[in-house]
C-alpha cells in the first residue's frame, strides 16, 4: 500500500482553491453518461440480441406470409408492414433498455455516486436521455435498413408478390420512421424507469403502455374505443410506419406528434419526481 498522502495535492484551503476548480458543464455530463453506457456489457448484449431477433423474426414472418397462400393477401395490401412485423418486439426491447438505463443505477446504488458528481439531477436525466436517444436512434436506423433489405430479398424470391421499392410512396418514411418511433419508445421506458425506480415495475409499466392497455381497449364499445385507440400514444406513433392511412387512426405525423407529446409529458413528470424525491 502506498503512502497515504502520496497522490494528494497537499494543503488546500477550501475557499482559496475553489476558483481554480474546473466547473463541469453539460458536455461533461454527456461524456460521463456515454462512458456509463458503453462500459456495460449488458447494454451491448441487449442491443445485439434485439437487432438479431427483430430482423430474424421479421424475415421469418415475411417468408411465412408469402410461402403460405392464404396469408399472401396481406403481403399484397401491406408489404412494408409485413417486412417490419418483428418490430413490436423491438419496441419492447428498446423500452426495456430505456428502463434499465435508470433503474440499474437505483438498484445498484450507483445513483448516489452519480448525484454526488452531478447534483443537478435534471442535467443527469437530460444527458442520460440524450445518450440513450442517440444510441437507440443509430442502432435502430441501421436495423431498419438491414431489416428492409432482408425483407426485400425474401419477397423478391416470390415474384407473385409485390416488392416494395424504397422510392415508392411513403416506404422510405416507414423505414426511417421506425428509428424515430423506436427512439421514442426507448424514452417511454426511460421516463417510466425514472418514475418507478424499479426494474420490474418499469418493465411492467412499459409492457402495459405498449401492449396491455391497447388490448384492454378492445373490450370497450366501439364508440369509445375508436377515439381512445386513435390517440393512444403507442398506437398513434405506429402510424408513421403505415404506407397508407388507416381507418380510425391519426395521420403519420399527427400520430408521431401525439407519441412525442406523451413522451415529453412523461419526461417532465420523471424530472419533477427525481428532483423532488430523496435519492
Amino acid at each position, binding site marked *: 500500500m502506498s503512502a497515504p498522502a502520496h*497522490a494528494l495535492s497537499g494543503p488546500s484551503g477550501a475557499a482559496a482553491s475553489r476558483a481554480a476548480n474546473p466547473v*463541469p*458543464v453539460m458536455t*461533461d455530463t454527456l*461524456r*460521463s453518461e456515454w*462512458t456509463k453506457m458503453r462500459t456495460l456489457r449488458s447494454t451491448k448484449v441487449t442491443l445485439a440480441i434485439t437487432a438479431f431477433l427483430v430482423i430474424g423474426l421479421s424475415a421469418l414472418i415475411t417468408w411465412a406470409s408469402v410461402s403460405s397462400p392464404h396469408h399472401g393477401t396481406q403481403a399484397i395490401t401491406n408489404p412494408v408492414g409485413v417486412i417490419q412485423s418483428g418490430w413490436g418486439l423491438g419496441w419492447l426491447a428498446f423500452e426495456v433498455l430505456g428502463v434499465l438505463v435508470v433503474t440499474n443505477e437505483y438498484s445498484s446504488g450507483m445513483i448516489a455516486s452519480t*448525484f*454526488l458528481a452531478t*447534483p443537478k439531477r435534471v442535467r443527469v436525466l437530460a444527458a442520460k436521455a440524450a445518450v440513450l436517444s442517440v444510441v437507440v436512434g443509430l442502432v435502430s436506423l441501421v436495423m431498419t435498413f438491414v431489416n428492409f433489405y432482408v425483407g426485400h430479398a425474401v419477397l423478391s424470391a416470390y415474384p407473385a408478390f409485390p416488392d416494395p421499392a424504397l422510392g415508392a410512396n411513403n416506404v422510405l418514411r416507414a423505414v426511417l420512421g421506425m428509428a424515430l418511433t423506436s427512439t421514442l419508445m426507448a424514452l417511454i421506458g426511460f421516463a417510466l424507469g425514472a418514475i418507478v425506480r424499479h426494474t420490474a415495475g418499469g418493465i411492467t409499466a412499459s409492457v402495459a403502455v405498449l401492449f396491455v392497455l391497447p388490448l384492454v381497449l378492445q373490450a370497450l364499445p366501439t364508440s369509445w374505443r375508436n377515439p381512445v385507440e386513435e390517440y393512444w400514444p403507442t398506437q398513434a406513433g405506429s402510424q408513421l410506419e403505415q404506407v397508407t392511412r388507416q381507418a380510425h387512426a391519426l395521420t403519420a405525423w399527427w400520430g408521431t406528434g401525439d407519441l412525442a407529446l406523451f413522451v415529453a409529458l412523461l419526461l417532465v413528470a420523471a424530472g419533477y419526481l427525481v428532483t423532488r424525491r430523496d435519492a
Partner: protein
Amino acid sequence: MIQVRNVTKRFGAKTAVNNLTFDVQPGVVTGFLGPNGAGKTTTLRTIVGLVRPEVGSVTVNGTKYHDLPAPMHEVGALLEAKAYHPGRRARDHLLALAQASRIPRRRVEEVLGLVGLSDAAKRKAGTFSLGMAQRLGIATALLGDPPVLLLDEPVNGLDPEGILWVRKLMQALAAEGRTVLVSSHLMSEMALTATHVIVIGRGRLIADSTIDELVRTSSGSRVRLRTPMADAVLPRLQAAGGTVQPGDDGAILVSGLEPKAVGDIAFEAQVPVYELTRLEASLEQAFMELTQEESEFRGQGSEGAQEGHGALPSSGPLPSNGGEAPAAQQGWPAPVPAQGWPAGQQGGAPGAPSQGWPAGQQGWSGPA
C-alpha cells in the same frame, strides 16, 4: 467546514434526524458516533443533498451542496460501500465519475494506486470483496482531491492493514487542513483516529466535544487513591460528593471528584498518599454512557450489563458529572481498570498535540 443547522428529516412517521445542529471544523478528524439507527447515514446524505430535510439547512464551505459549482472538487463522500454498478469495471466506474466532474483521466489511475486497486482496475466491481468495495468507495471520494471528506464507516470490512491505512489517510488529510467527518461504530478505532467527536442518538445531538473532554467527564473516569488509612478519608470523600468503591490491592476508587479534590481531601485528613492516579474511561465507556438511553436497538442482556445506570444524565450535550447522580454509579459491573485500556490509546491521536492523554495514565501500568 460543514455547517448543519436545525436539520430535521422524517421518513413517514419516523424522525430520523431531529433538529440537529453542529459544525465540523477543518484540520482535525471528527468522529460521528451514535447507536444503530441514530441518523448518522441520514445526516451524511443530507449534507450532500441526496436526502432533503424537512427543516433546516446544510452548507459546505458556505454553499449548499446542490449549488457547488464543482462538487467533487469540494466534497468527497463514501456513503455506502457499493455505490457502483456491479457490471462495470472499477476503472470505468471512476472514469465516468471523473468525466462528470471534469477531472483528468490520469487522476483515475492515481486514486486507484492510492487505494491499492491498480491491479484490480480491470475487474468488474461486482466481483470485489467488501474491503475492495470500500477501497473503491474511498478512491471515489478522493477523485476530486476535495478539502472536505465524509466517510460513512470507512473501515467496515477492511483488514487490519487496511484499517491502519485508512486511519493514517484520514489523519494525513486532516493534517493538510481538510475537513474530515467519519462515522464509525468502532470506538477504539475512533479513539485512535479522531480528535473531535459528534455523538447523536435518535437523531438528536448528544455530545459535540473533543474526545479528551468526553472521556474526562464520563462517570467511568475515576481517581485511584492508595493510602494505608483509607477509613480516615472515606467519609470526607463522600461528604465532598465522591462515590467510593474498593479497588484492587487495597486501593480505593473515587468517582465524581477530580484528582486535585481527592488530593486536597487526603491532605486535610492528614493521611499518607502512596498513589493518586486519574483513570480515564475509554471512549467506549463514555459512548455507552451517553447513548444508552438513546439506543433504539439493543440486544437482550445488554440491559443487565448497564444495570444501575438508568439515572444517568442522558440528554443535553456533555453531561457534567458533578455528583448529579452519584448513587447510580455504584452499579458498574466490574472495577473499571480491570477491563484494561485499549493498548493503542496511549498514542492518543498523533498530530494533535493538544490532545495529550493525562499523565496519570502512565501510573496505571505500574503497581497493579
